[in-house]
């Protein structure tokens, strides 16, 4: 499996094709549309991420010490953002997830459009993913 840094670099390379914000938006929407639907049993308040304008649910399952995420949202754009995070962080051990700096978000120019973190919930999603990783790593230690 490629490193976190390489996975991030691959996303940055994908985004280099796009010149305008509209193109990037369209691409993120396509990623969101392609993200597999989440199992409905996890679409409950227990899995809901607080602090987002849109409803976002995130579930984590652990297989052989690796963390796998699935997520859903009423916003296709937010699903696209989740899809990017999953591309980078899915199927990794907790320590790699906790160490990920996720610099790709700045590199692809998303930060300037997502300044309103409360609205899009990107920061909350990252925090929740890292919370899962932290909980698991302290459990196994």
């Amino acid at each position, binding site marked *: 499996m490629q490193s976190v840094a390489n996975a991030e670099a691959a996303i940055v390379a994908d985004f280099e094709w796009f010149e305008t914000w509209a193109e990037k938006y369209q691409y993120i929407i396509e990623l969101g549309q392609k993200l597999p639907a989440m199992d409905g049993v996890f679409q409950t308040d227990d899995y809901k991420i607080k602090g987002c304008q849109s409803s976002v649910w995130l579930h984590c399952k652990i297989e052989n010490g690796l963390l796998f995420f699935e997520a859903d949202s009423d916003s296709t*754009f937010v699903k696209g953002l989740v899809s990017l995070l999953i591309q980078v962080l899915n199927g990794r051990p907790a320590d790699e997830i906790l160490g990920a700096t996720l610099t790709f978000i700045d590199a692809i120019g998303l930060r300037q459009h997502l300044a309103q973190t409360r609205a899009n919930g990107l920061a909350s999603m990252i925090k929740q993913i890292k919370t899962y990783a932290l909980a698991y790593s302290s459990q196994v230690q």
Partner: protein
Amino acid sequence: MNHPNTQNEFDVAAIRNHFPILQTSVYNLPLVYFDNAATTQKPQAVIDAITNYYSKYNANIHRGVHYLSQIASQAYDDVRIKTQKFLGAAQASEIVFVRGTTEAVNLVAATYGRQQLKAGDEILISHMEHHSNIVPWQILAQQTGAVLKVIPINKNGELDMQAFYVLCTAKTKIVSVTYVSNALGTINPVKEIIDNAHKQGAVVLIDGAQAVSHFDLDVQELNCDFFACSAHKMLGPTGIGVLYGKHHLLTQMPPYMGGGDMIQSVSFNGTTYNEVPYKFEAGTPHIEGVIAWGAALDYWQTINRAQAMQHEQSLLNYCTNQLQQIKRVKIIGTAANKCSVCSFVIEGVSNFDAGMFLDTMGIAVRTGQHCTEPLMDALGVKGTIRASFFFYNTIAEVDKLIAAVKKCIDVLAK
């Protein structure tokens, strides 16, 4: 529907030239600014007033005997008189400068409210209030044991006035309602509310944040006891707003904050307070903000308001009509009496996605709950997409919005 031909009467193109930001582009597209209910753009005259103040007569006010302080104090005090005239207050001393509508409501709740209310008294608000006209009263209710009552709304987003008459009783001590709903644009029958509340012995605060920039009003004619508004929603800068209060009420109210300028004399044996309105303006005020607000009021005088109102109404009616023709679009808030706000939802598209999509096309709207969570719950929506207009917007801009909404549905609808 044909394009309404209002531009001939009302020279929008000339007016737009007064607003530098309206000449700018976002993502290489001309900016279409439909988030005026959140804040309006500023004319050059307002921007110049800020620069002028800092370039030519920056000084602290009401304290210095020196030349600059005299000029700045005079400029500051002149704006109080301009604001008095603008709102139709009887005296300039009834105008208190605050940070904005939110602070004005909090001030009344924390002073008049804490002084006058006791356990079992009732505060009456409505279901369509902005959070800033809900939470201060909840805090007051917790502090005093008073009870918060809420006027319900009907499915069109209008106040249920029959319910109001039942809810407004001799127990009601404060009624606080919005003149115009920030989320729906509904214009409420505040005169009727004020008259009836007075019969019951209650005082009335009108949240005028969304009203002042869209039609003329007169606080003496309304006979409200308090009136709150924000400069930035009417051409002025952020961080400055107005609380109007009837003189005898302001006089009997205790101070809100302690500090400089609000006192007459201070000793450790006791402090005497300055007279109104200075009693409520502790500390160095937002001098530049007040002066720029004055420039906004001057600019306001140059606008033919009857034509401006008619133009805004044309924008609202045209936008509503066009949106209603799009399958999947539903207008939220269909009150008979509305101004400047068109809220809607798109079936199969989240409000957030739609807002982001419109942004990529250079169109600024607001999405979400608009700080009116109880209202959204009552209407059974998670939030809306809100286009809000001001007199500098054009029919051509509405056409861009309509085209963008159609495209948004093509790309996003599930």
